[in-house]
Every structure is written in C-alpha cells, then in structure tokens.
C-alpha cells in the first residue's frame, strides 16, 4: 500500500475517533501520531525537528507558558474581584451585568485561554444569578460566546490563531491590526442584538439589586503582593507580544520569558503550576501535528489544496472567492468539529495553495497582501464558527458541564438557539469586513 493511502487512512481514522468522542481526543491524536511513525509515513526526525512537517514547538511552548501564567494569576483572587466589581458597576441590573460580563470575558479571553476565562467567571456568574433569583443559563452562554469572539481578536487569544500565526509567520500586531477591529464591530453589533432580545426580559426587583450592591470585595484579593507582581509581568509580557515582530522574537519566547519570570517571583513550587497545565490539550496538539505532518509528506494535503484551487480559482491578483468561501466553510466545519484539528489541516493546505498561486511557500508568499485575507478568513471562520453548537469549542463543552453540575443543564438545542444566530451574525459581519477591507477598498 502506498504511503499516500496509509497516511490518509490514519488521518481519517484519527479524525473519526476525535469527532465521535467515543474515546478521548488526546488518545486518538497520540494513537494516530504513533501509527504515523510506526508505518514510517514520517520519521521521528521529521516529527520532532522538521519545521514544515513536524510538531510546531512554537505553538506548544506558547500554550504551556500561557497556561502557567494564568495558573499563577488565578491564585491572587483577581478574577472574582474584577467580576464582582463589574456586577456592582452594573448596579445590580441583570442586562447591564450581562453586557459588562460579556465585555470583560471578551477582553480577558483575548489575552488568556478561553476555557480558563469562562471557568474563572462562572462561579461569580452563578452567585450573581442566585442573588438576583434569575436563570444563570443565558449569562453562562453569553460569556462563552463572548470568550470565543474575544479570543479571535489576538494571536494568543485562541489556539487556531496561535497555529495560523506560527504557520504564516504573522505577528501579534498583525492580528491586532487586521482582526481586532472586526471583533470590536462584532461585539458592538452582537450586544445591540442582545439588548433587543434580553433588555426587557431581564428585570428584577430593587431589593434583589441591593443584594448585589451589598457583596463584599474586601477579602477577595488573597495575595496582593503576588497580584502586583503578576500585573507587572503580564504587562511586560503583553508589551513583548506587541513588540515581538520588531525585536525578532517568536511569541513563544515572549510567553516563556513571562512564565519563567512569574514562576521566579511567585515563590511557589513549580510542580504546582506545572501540574495545573492542561497536559491533555498540549499532547493533543503534539499528536495532531504529527498526523498532519504525515499527510503533508504523503501528498494528501497537496491534492486537497489542488481541489480547493480548482473550486475557488484564486490568482496572485485575486483571492476573493477563496477568502469569502473560507469564512463560511471554516465556520461550518468548526461548528461541528473541534477547530484545532480543522486549522491543523487547513494550515498546510493553504501553504501548498500559496505555493501554487504565488510560486513559493516562503514568507513573501504566505504574507503576500493577497494571501493575508485568506489567513484572516480562516481565523475568523474557525474561531467564530465554534459558537454555533455546544461542542463547537472547548469553552462551550466546559460551560455545559459546569451548568449541569450546578443543577442548570443546558440542552444541545438550547445552546444552538443562542449560538447559531450569533454565529450567523458574526460570520456575516466578518464576510462583509473581509470583502470591504481587502477587496472593495484594498
């Protein structure tokens, strides 16, 4: 049997196992990676050291470093402190609180992992809903939608962006300049629609609002000294992200420096911070990179990119059809499958495609002004499409589980009632943005 069919078989088998959720996705990815190496589709040298075929250590190191930073920061108590202050800022009005929580979640998830952001805010959300005697489910779903939207805005906000940036050599500033503006537009439009939907429905008595105003924040900050240290180091790390392109550092170098600095100043046993790292996610990435590397080497990705090429007919002067189609294709795919394996597959496909259209796979082709909108389309589609269903993104799955444990189960269809319209709205705005910014007024 040719390597092409072996690699295709491993790829299909692993992805079927991941989608079915019958076995844990990390097990499926690692088993697929092991088969890729055992069948010698990829050598171990390729898997570990080849920049084009192997594990993208930039992504892996960036993820681990950011997880370490969040783990240390979460011990300061800053997240519940900010959330309760925000609820007070809303003066106990449910819709005001919902909107402020959405903005806070979007901002936080632009800088931190979406799952972590949602997990940190959920207890306060449940408490606020309890105090206001209202259903917490619309709040929880709003927060997860906001996390997925906000995470799209930056290079470090959502794993697909980390992967896209690493593959295409895009910087933190590139995302801030090209993606963040449309995310601001999306947030404004979405919250406007939310005001129409929830503005009148969410009302409570004045005495219930008073309960929120009576919440005490004095003891929420558990370690003020560590909080100061975290604030300074996080600020410096963010500055590092903004400047990494100018300084000639990879984002992972900046994140590693931030994580190392926090570990040093926190005075904690590193075993604790490292134990909290989501190792299953990290190894899921490693497994996926190896499986996809196998399909690239065996030629599957090249033949798929040829299909995309013939369907969308991009040229070096015009990639409009490809970009606009990709927003919706990536959105639909990410609604039903995890966006991480989807982007892991699309990345090498787009690199191959760039090679065919622009005659090279170097930075000059991958960052060509007509190739950039294609990457932005992939990022917007993959990140925002995850909002459609309860299984579209990791944060959605986490919130559904958390709500069930709190005695407020969210059915698959109830999630879709919120998620699908928001996904259609956000993908629609993204399509308009890409068309207008890159093709109508280039």
């Amino acid at each position, binding site marked *: 049997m040719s390597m092409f069919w072996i690699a295709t078989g491993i790829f299909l088998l692993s992805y079927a196992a991941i989608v079915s959720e019958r076995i844990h996705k990390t097990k499926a990815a690692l088993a697929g990676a092991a088969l890729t190496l055992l069948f010698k589709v990829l050598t171990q040298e390729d898997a570990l050291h080849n920049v084009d075929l192997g594990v993208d250590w930039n992504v892996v190191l960036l993820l681990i470093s950011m997880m370490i930073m969040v783990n240390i920061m979460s011990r300061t108590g800053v997240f*519940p402190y900010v959330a309760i202050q925000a609820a007070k800022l809303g003066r106990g009005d449910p819709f005001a609180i919902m909107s402020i929580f959405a903005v806070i979640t979007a901002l936080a998830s632009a800088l931190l992992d979406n799952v972590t952001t949602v997990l940190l805010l959920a207890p*306060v959300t449940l*408490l606020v809903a309890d105090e206001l005697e209202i259903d917490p489910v619309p709040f929880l779903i709003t927060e997860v939608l906001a996390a997925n939207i906000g995470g799209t805005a930056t290079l470090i906000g959502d794993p697909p962006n980390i992967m896209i940036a690493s593959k295409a050599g895009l910087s933190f500033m590139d995302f801030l300049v090209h993606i963040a503006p449309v995310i601001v537009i999306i947030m404004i439009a979405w919250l406007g629609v939310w005001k129409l939907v929830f503005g009148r429905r969410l009302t409570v008595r004045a005495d219930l609002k008073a309960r929120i105003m009576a919440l005490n924040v004095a003891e*929420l900050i558990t370690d003020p000294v560590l909080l100061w240290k975290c604030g300074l180091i996080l600020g410096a790390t963010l500055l590092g992200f903004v400047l990494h392109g100018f300084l000639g550092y990879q984002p992972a170098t900046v994140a590693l420096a931030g994580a190392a600095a926090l570990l040093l100043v926190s005075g904690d046993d590193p075993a604790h911070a490292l134990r909290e790292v989501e190792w299953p996610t990290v190894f899921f990435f490693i497994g996926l990179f190896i499986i996809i590397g196998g399909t690239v080497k065996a030629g599957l990705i090249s033949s798929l990119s040829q299909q995309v090429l013939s369907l969308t007919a991009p040229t070096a002067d015009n990639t409009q059809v490809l970009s606009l189609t990709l927003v919706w294709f990536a959105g639909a795919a990410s609604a039903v499958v995890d966006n991480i394996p989807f982007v892991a597959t699309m990345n090498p496909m787009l690199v191959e495609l760039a090679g065919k259209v622009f005659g090279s796979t170097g930075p000059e082709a991958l960052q060509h002004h007509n190739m950039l909108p294609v990457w932005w389309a992939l990022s917007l589609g993959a990140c925002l499409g995850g909002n459609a269903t309860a299984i579209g993104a990791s944060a959605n799955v986490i919130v559904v589980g958390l709500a069930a*444990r709190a005695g407020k189960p969210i059915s698959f269809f109830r999630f879709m009632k919120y998620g699908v319209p928001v996904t259609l709205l956000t993908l629609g705005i993204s399509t308009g943005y890409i068309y207008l910014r890159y093709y109508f007024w280039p």
Partner: protein
Amino acid sequence: MHIAQMMNTSLSRVAPDQNFCTLLTEHADADTRHTYVVDEHGRLLGVITSQDLMGRMVPSYLDPQLASSLADGAELILRRFRDNARLSAADLMQPKPVAVHPEDTLIEANVRLHEGRLSALPVVDAHGILVGEISRRDILRHIARDICGLPGAA
C-alpha cells in the same frame, strides 16, 4: 470479627416520599452518619449523606473567597432551602449504595470505606434489608476496646 458485632443498629430510616423538611430534621437528630431510604419491607433503596443535603443549600460553586463576599449567607441558604422544599428523599438519595453484610469482616468493611472514600456503610442482610450501619468510628471503637484492650474505649 464480624461486622454484626460492631455495627450501629439505631438507624435513621425514611420512606422514598419523605419530604425535604422532615428529612432534614430527622437527619440532623440521628445518631448515625447517614439517613437511609428504605421501601415498605425495609429493603435499602438509597443513602442520604449530610453533603447531599448541604449541597442543596450551600452552592458548590462557592470557594472560600467568594463565600466571604456574601453579606448574609444565611439568606442564600434559606432561599435555596425553599427552592428545594418540594424534593423528596428519592430525589435526594444516592441510589444503589455500596453495602456490606453482617458476616463480612472488619478488614473488609475498612477496605470498602477506604476505596469509596466513605465515612460509613449500610449493612444489609441476604434479602437486601437494612440491618445496621458501620462507620470508621465503630471500627476504631472495636479495635480500641476488644483488640487493644484500652480502658474506657467502650
């Protein structure tokens, strides 16, 4: 040494349709660790622990810091108590609990407690009828009194 010789037989038994309020009172006044839900023949249907009842009134999402932000926690507990007032023992119980038999040994009971991270186990006879409860304290009391012969352990 068999469990029958050291188990507590003064049990808190309730019917599956017992309401939350009565159940709470009975549980609070009981001598045993758990309250047991039994059918009309005395067969064990489920077990209710203090945490099963507490969890309905003190939200599990509260950590110590967040709890400190509440001006009056008693009000929240009262509200959740009222919200759950319609629940019955059948709604609250853990069905099909791990149980031991009167002829099982002290070591077996201890291993089951350890494995399940439990504080006490129901004891049922061959027909599934609840006959007693065995807790770590019952076992320790027996060791102190009958094995080590310590004075005053009874």
